[in-house]
């Protein structure tokens, strides 16, 4: 946090404009980690495919966690899978973001009541930035989720700590 923090006093024009450039780059290049778990993965694939084309926004699928910025948790997280998700999240390089796609990843979804093997929400094991509701969310919803994440990234400050 704040690698130039003590070099300058307070927010100044260099830090803020550098921040802007960095955030512009980060928000416009959200490479997502292909992390298909269940039904939502099909919608994720459909979003990346011809009609919806996620690549328009600079989002590119990566299959190795090391090269991804965003982990899209798409689908039901089971207890058997949970530790693997944690591991994969740890393997990602900072700055990293998590989008929880679909009701199952948000809260267990339809498996909430009797699902003895379903984790009730992926936020129990990894920090989640954006929740996308829906079972499964439509491709438009996923795109909206990515846009919201862009907004979130643009408000970040990686060089100076916010005054508040």
């Amino acid at each position, binding site marked *: 946090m704040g690698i130039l923090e003590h070099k300058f006093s307070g927010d100044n024009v260099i830090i803020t404009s550098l921040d802007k450039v960095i955030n512009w780059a980060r928000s416009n290049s959200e490479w997502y980690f292909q992390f298909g778990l269940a039904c939502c993965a099909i919608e994720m694939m459909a979003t990346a495919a011809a009609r919806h084309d996620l690549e328009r926004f600079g989002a590119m699928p990566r299959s*190795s966690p090391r090269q991804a910025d965003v982990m899209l948790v798409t689908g039901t997280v089971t207890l058997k899978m949970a530790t693997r998700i944690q591991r994969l999240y740890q393997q990602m390089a900072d700055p990293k973001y998590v989008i929880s796609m679909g009701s199952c990843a948000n809260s267990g979804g339809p498996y909430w009541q009797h699902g003895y093997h379903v984790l009730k929400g992926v936020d129990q094991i990894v920090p989640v930035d954006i929740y996308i509701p829906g079972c499964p969310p439509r491709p438009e919803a996923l795109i909206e989720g990515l846009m919201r994440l862009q907004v979130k990234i643009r408000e970040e400050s990686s060089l100076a700590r916010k005054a508040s």
Partner: protein
Amino acid sequence: MIDAFASWMLQFGALSWLGTTPATILAMSLVAVAIFIFVALNALVLVYVERKVSAFMQVRLGPMRVGPMGTLQTVADALKLLLKEDIIPRFADPILFRVGPWIILLASFVAFAAVPFSPGWVPADMSIGLFYVVSISSVVVIGIVMSGWASNNKWSLYGAMRSAAQIVSYEIPVGLSLLAAVAVVGTLNLQEIIAAQAGVGNLFHWIPIPFPNWYIFHSPFLFLAGCIYLIAATAEVNRTPFDIPESESELVAGFMTEYSGIRWALFFLSEYANAAVVALLTAIVFLGGWQSPFADLAGARFGMISLTVLALIWTIFVKYKVKRLSIYPIGTILALTVIAWLFPAFAIWLATPGLVWIAIKGGVVIFLLMWFRWTFPRLRVDQLMYLSWKVLLPIALINLAGVAVWMWLTGAISLVG
């Protein structure tokens, strides 16, 4: 070029106090920096082009939002990669892991030293230029094996092993197919190879259709050699259908699996630098390098005829399929054709800048590589080896003999003294 540059600097007032040696060193470093900038820009542009080309082939749009038509997309990507965490896995070999990507980049970067971009524009005009480029670009494999091994990841290891086998095998068809051209021209100097392809002659020497004297049109054997070179070179730079070292659906990301951030960006940089080297080498050895096909009157006539034919074909067949895209290229081509047909002098002027021509030729080859990548499935390891050792190698060998026979038939060499 370095010497010329250095002596120019010495003549230049403000720098005249420099001695010859410092001036040469300065010139060298400036050229190196220029090449490095070229390599970086090359990757930025090619990644963008590749994403767009793939998108259009896949009925998508590709990057759209960042900058006009998404042109700044790769800039954003590069910046982001620079700022990402650089992970070195705990059980990785720390030195090799760090050094590997740099060696790969260095190998592809240094190869540009002998590439002639234009008449007189060659960083190092060496007599063994072709040999140098071919040998230095295979140093890449050392970097790949290093980084694959150092990652301490099984997928990376597989990628590295496959890559080692592949690049070493495909060196041979690459060398033999280039040798066919060398046999004709009799030199390894790239500038001389280009110079020998000047002018316009008959297609395949005997068929009375005017064609540029490029080696790909020189004889059927050299045409074949060009095809072999393109196939083998595609394998050399690890692109589909020969991308088994990083095959995404099999090995996650092959030897790059454990790399993140800037080091991974280096792989990208070198991948596209390699593609550029291959494309440029194809252009130089088989497509006449910076030679323009319209450099003289006959050439201009040839060019005009072929362009007119192309434009007609394009208009008739393609325009009805791709409505929006075709108007501008056709318009440009037609306009150029008409103007050049009326004013041959203009055509010759159009033909002069070698840099433009080598860029066009290289671009066409790179587009071919992309076309391969987005349409073909991937070969298996053993099929890849089979193709190299049992198909390309014998053909290349016979082809080399064929070139000799051809030269004897056309009188370029004679058996008695």
